[in-house]
């Protein structure tokens, strides 16, 4: 076991890992699924099916030629009942394919274990699988695995820090499928010729560390790094620093310091996919929150509506006032329970009135707690005031675009100022100004 560096700043958040001992339960087949054509960072897919088409499990229903993208597959067998823009996780409308299930769950003919002999073929197979970063960001995996020419990658980092409160999706993967994780690591190591693998896990998950160390002992190239439990330990730049001591410069990528970071669920999926050829059509989702009767860990087909997931988990004990996709620090508040579970959804949280209430913000007292908490070394208080004044020049001077939006500043602010919200606003002001300025 290794213990390297500790990033500066961050906050101690409560853990609330209430679902850590919940065995993953396979959710029953929903009557219909609504599958959005955008479930990743990048270009949306074109729908490949029309109303009335019959589809099978694993069939490609959306794809595109664009490089930064990932194909979308049907998670059920049934009949397409509509292709139209539908309300999406972030509150926008995205073209989605609605499929009425037939209950048979017949597999598509195309599903067979992929064959590959070269690195290029491996990357091609990963793209076909539709895999995106399962930690929440949804960055297409085949791009992550193909670093630019000339960038030597020496280390693969597996992100199992899971520093967000409530979420146990990564934790359950290690407890239930640790051998899959190792197998996936082996596949990536071999294909990309990497000889050093570090698995980062926060020290509040001793069972996961023990399990992973046991499995990793079979390989002398794989090591578990015990990380201090401090939010945002799982943020990519912080994790790279904590495990390797390397700092990714602002505006640069992990490949610039010779590492690739993958979520533990993503790596485990690769193993499963190489074995079976089944693309990404389901996802383990932590279902929790104070408004729920029964927190649980569910295996959900992509495209299932949030309301059905909550119902399957045991329903609400009080009317939900706020529903989050993702954790409470970085998750996205949902407009409706009719939006669909996406590839990168790792948690669905529902909160009652008490937790949903927005704190009233007061005047900034310049206490400097946000400065202390910022893992990126920024001055959130100045970003806040300059964003509210729309002072683009100052925003750039204070490095607004380096903010990773982890929420540590807002969390720690005694005046309850909505710092992250202002910083997001500031980022868009800078973007707008640079478009206008023709830079």
């Amino acid at each position, binding site marked *: 076991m290794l213990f390297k560096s500790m990033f500066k700043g961050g906050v101690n958040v409560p853990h609330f890992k209430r679902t850590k001992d919940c065995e993953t339960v396979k959710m029953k087949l929903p009557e219909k699924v609504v599958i959005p054509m955008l479930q990743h960072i990048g270009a949306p897919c074109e729908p490949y099916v029309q109303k009335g088409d019959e589809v099978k499990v694993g069939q490609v229903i959306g794809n595109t030629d664009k490089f930064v993208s990932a194909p979308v597959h049907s998670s059920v067998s049934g009949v397409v009942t509509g292709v139209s823009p539908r309300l999406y996780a972030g509150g926008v409308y995205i073209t989605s394919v609605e499929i009425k299930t037939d209950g048979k769950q017949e597999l598509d003919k195309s599903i067979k274990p992929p064959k590959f002999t070269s690195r290029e073929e491996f990357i091609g197979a990963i793209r076909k699988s539709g895999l995106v970063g399962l930690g929440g960001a949804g960055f297409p995996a085949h791009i992550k695995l193909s670093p630019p020419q000339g960038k030597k990658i020496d280390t693969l980092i597996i992100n199992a820090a899971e520093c967000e409160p409530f979420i146990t999706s990564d934790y359950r993967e290690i407890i239930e499928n640790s051998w899959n994780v190792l197998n996936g690591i082996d596949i990536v190591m071999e294909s990309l010729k990497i000889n050093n693998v570090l698995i980062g896990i926060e020290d509040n998950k001793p069972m996961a560390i023990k399990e992973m160390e046991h499995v990793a002992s079979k390989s002398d190239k794989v090591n578990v790094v015990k990380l201090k439990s401090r939010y945002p330990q799982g943020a990519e730049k912080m994790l790279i620093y904590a495990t390797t001591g390397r700092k990714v*410069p602002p505006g640069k990528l992990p490949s610039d310091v010779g590492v690739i970071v993958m979520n533990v669920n993503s790596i485990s999926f690769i193993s499963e996919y190489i074995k079976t050829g089944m693309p990404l059509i389901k996802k383990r989702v932590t279902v929790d929150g104070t408004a729920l009767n029964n927190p649980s860990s569910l295996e959900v087909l992509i495209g299932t509506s949030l309301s059905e997931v909550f119902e399957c988990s045991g329903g609400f004990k009080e009317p939900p006032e706020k529903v989050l996709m993702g954790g409470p620090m970085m998750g*996205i508040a949902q407009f*409706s329970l009719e939006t669909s579970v996406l590839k990168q959804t790792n948690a669905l949280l529902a909160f009652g009135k008490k937790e949903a209430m927005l704190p009233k913000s007061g*005047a900034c007292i310049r206490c400097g707690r946000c400065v202390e908490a910022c893992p990126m*070394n920024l001055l959130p208080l100045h970003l806040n005031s300059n964003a509210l004044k729309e002072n683009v020049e100052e925003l750039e001077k204070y490095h607004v675009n380096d903010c990773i939006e982890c929420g540590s500043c807002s969390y720690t602010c005694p005046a309850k100022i909505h710092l992250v919200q202002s910083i997001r606003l500031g980022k868009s002001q800078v973007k707008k100004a640079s478009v206008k300025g023709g830079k």
Partner: protein
Amino acid sequence: MENKLIVSSSPHIRGKASTQRIMLDVIIALLPAAIFGIYFFGLKAALVILVTVISCVASEYLTRVILKREPTISDLSAVVTGVLLALNLPPTIPLWMAAVGGVVAIVIVKQLFGGLGQNFMNPALVARVFLLNAFAKQMTTFITPGPDAISSATPLFQMKEFVKGNEANLSGYWDLFVGNISGCIGETSVIALLIGGIYLLFRRVITLDIPVAFIGSVALITWIFGGQTSFTGDWIYHVLSGGLMIGAFFMATDYATSPVTFKGRIIMGIGCGVLTAVIRLYTSSPEGVSYAILLMNICVPLIDRYTVPKSFGGEKAIA
């Protein structure tokens, strides 16, 4: 039900810290000094504290009403200003003057500049300096502690005479440490102020950077230049007397008027220390903590501007 969901920007949970709790901590931390002040200087000291607190809170309330702003007295910051001001006044000050100080601190220094967090100088200190100039006699009349209180010069005044070679009555270190000397209500007892300072450090309300840099640089300079010859200055005497302790732990660390980064705070602390020592040693005034802090307060925006840290990963900051 569908349209009732609350949608807001992340993060969706917040920590427990609040402005009110921080202010309450500062008040708690000032209690030992207030109690020692009342013990040494009698009930008159208690009355001064009461009057300034009432004056500050009432001023804050009325200004907010007149300016048609939300009431803010519940954040307790006006109480903090009131207590701090009282602790910086001589126990013999006429009560109406103390009340005037409270009005100056809150109305002119704090609210007219935008209220909490917006003032660019420490309200209590500006009020003190205002009173010092307006009512010089009453503000510089100090008494010895105890029932038969008689007029007496402060330890720093004695030190000034001593270095000049005149006859002087220097206090012992122990009396300075406990506060058995003449001076302002809350600035005399080093032990009481240290207890409060340690409480603030423990509660993470303040950090050590400013106090250490401040006191350290005063000690260094008074040691080198504070004696009749070089390197013979009585730095312990300088550290223990005057308003240094209350200034270093409670005034210079005031959030609104101190820098937000570690580097900035070190610069602030050293600046305060150097100015304090220079005023004490080379001007006609025996004490310089108030002026030193106020001068550094004015520099804070500048310090903040030139101490913008590099982002994680080491890009060079453009200053």
